[in-house]
Structures are given as C-alpha cells and as structure tokens.
C-alpha cells in the first residue's frame, strides 16, 4: 500500500533542546564538524487508495492541523514515499 511521508521540523527560530544535546554529544565524540543539529519528526501514513494531488493536499492540511504543532513546528514536506529500495539507500 502506498505511504505518504510527512516531515515536520521545529521552527528555525525556536530553541531545539534535542538538537542542542546531540551537537554537544557529537562534539564530545570529536565530531565538531557538525555545527548544528535539529531534530524533527517523520510520519509515515499508509493509505489504501492511490495517491493523487487531492490526497496530498488533504494530508498537508491534516499535517498543519494535527500532526504538527504549528506554533513551534513547520511542516517541511508532504510526499509519497519512494519505493523502499531507493529510500533505503545512502546515495
């Protein structure tokens, strides 16, 4: 069944304590090349029908409405998942 992916990230100007903690941990591991880390959410919604523009628009609305807290988060992407074999690759 097709999967729609919704990506939500904390707003840029909002403190992201999680990302901060990870940057600190990376620093301690000697990986200070990573200057900033932000941690958001990735939703996978399984749908039983075909994915078309109307459905994507509906999901985006849902995402703004319910999946994300738009006071502090942005919905950065709503798209159909690529077939697993591609998505799993590192490039």
């Amino acid at each position: 069944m097709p999967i729609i992916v919704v990506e939500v990230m904390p707003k840029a100007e909002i403190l992201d304590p999680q990302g901060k903690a990870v940057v600190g941990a990376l620093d301690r591991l000697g990986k200070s090349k990573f200057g900033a880390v932000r941690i958001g959410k990735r939703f996978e919604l399984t749908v039983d029908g075909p994915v078309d523009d109307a459905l994507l628009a509906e999901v985006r609305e849902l995402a703004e409405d319910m999946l994300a807290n738009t006071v502090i988060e942005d919905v950065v992407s709503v798209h159909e998942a690529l077939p697993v074999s591609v998505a799993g690759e590192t490039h």
Partner: protein
Amino acid sequence: MRIGVITFPGSLDDRDAARAITIAGAEPVALWHGDHDLHDVDAVVLPGGFSYGDYLRAGAIASHAPIMAEVIEAAGRGIPVLGICNGFQMLAEARLLPGAHTRNAHQQFIRRDQRLIVENATTAWTNEFAAGEEIVIPLKNADGRFVADDETITRIEGNGQVVFRYAGLNPNGSMNDIAGISNERGNVVGLMPHPEHATEPGFGPDMPDAMRSGTDGLRFFTSAMASLIARA
C-alpha cells in the same frame, strides 16, 4: 565496602542512591561521568534521572560518556553494576544489557508504587531476595517499556536473565511484563523501578500496614555487599 554512584549531567536520583547505600551500610563514592576513573569502587550504580534530558533517546547520549568505557571494562571483570531507570536505559544503550526501551505504551510519564516479582534471586543485586518473592518499589518514568526481538526474549527468558517482572499491572507495556534483567553472568542488573526510593521508613512506598513504610529496596544493596563478600 565502596559503591560508586555515577553522576551524569541530568542525573537526578544520584544523591538518593548514595543515601540508600549509606543506609544499607556501605560507603557511597561519587563518580563523575567525564572521568576515566572508577576510583577502585567495589560496585557501581548508574542512577535514575534524565541524562542529557533524554532528548535523543533515554540514556543514549550518556552511554557514550567517558566513564562508560570503564564501566564496561569493570562489568567484564564481574564487578556488580546496577542500572536504575535511566541507568538501565544507559546499560541497554551501551549494549551491556540486551533489549531497549521505548515510550510507555500509554505515552505518559507514570509514577506509582509498583509490585514486582523477583524472578531471579541469584544475581549480584538480588541474592538476598527469595525467588518468586513479591516486593513493592516506586516506579517513575516516561520511557520504560522494555522491548527486544523474539530471539532475544527467548534467550533471556531461557537463561534466567529476567530478574524482575511487573505484578498486578504492567505499567508501561513492557514485553513479558519485564521490569528488570541481568547480563548472563548476573553481575550487571538493570530495572525501571527505583529501589533507592524504598530504603528509608517514612519515605518509601505505601505498604498495606503503614503509609510510606516500604523498604524492599534495601536488599538490592545488601545483596551487592553479600555478593562482594562471597567473591572476596
């Protein structure tokens, strides 16, 4: 007898663990996450809390702390190591114990006086209990749900590595009602409930006979002391 308690940034129950060790009759030794030094302690406690806010995953960042290398080495030598709550999560993240922890099934932080069955009374931290004994230990966590793949579950059940099981109610959805486990050797034990909060009358869990009177947690520490004497 000297039992170390490691403080990580965000450790909360470190002083409580030290108090419990004192009440049990041993000497608590404060250890610091950033050191590569266990100060020759005879046993180690990884206390509860929210190390690094548990922001990545509970215990994940702390499991990479410098002192964890020493803990892993010492555990390999067989010294008793106890991970309480966040400490249990660190031991799992550090792969000293199998499995992992996820968010409680009901998704809330929960604090309650929890009944437990002691399943294995032969580990370094449980030898003063009787197998099958029921005890009451306060529980408080948000990410306490123990999970592991089928093969791991079968293995730890078969090896007697399940040390505690929730009784009466599984408070977080842990697989097989598992509240605490040990490594194969039985010197490393981790559990979600907090034995250090059941060591002083008046400040422990409510018991049927009197308010706040539970002290079942004391025997965790006296067990470690007994096992150290037996080893010596």
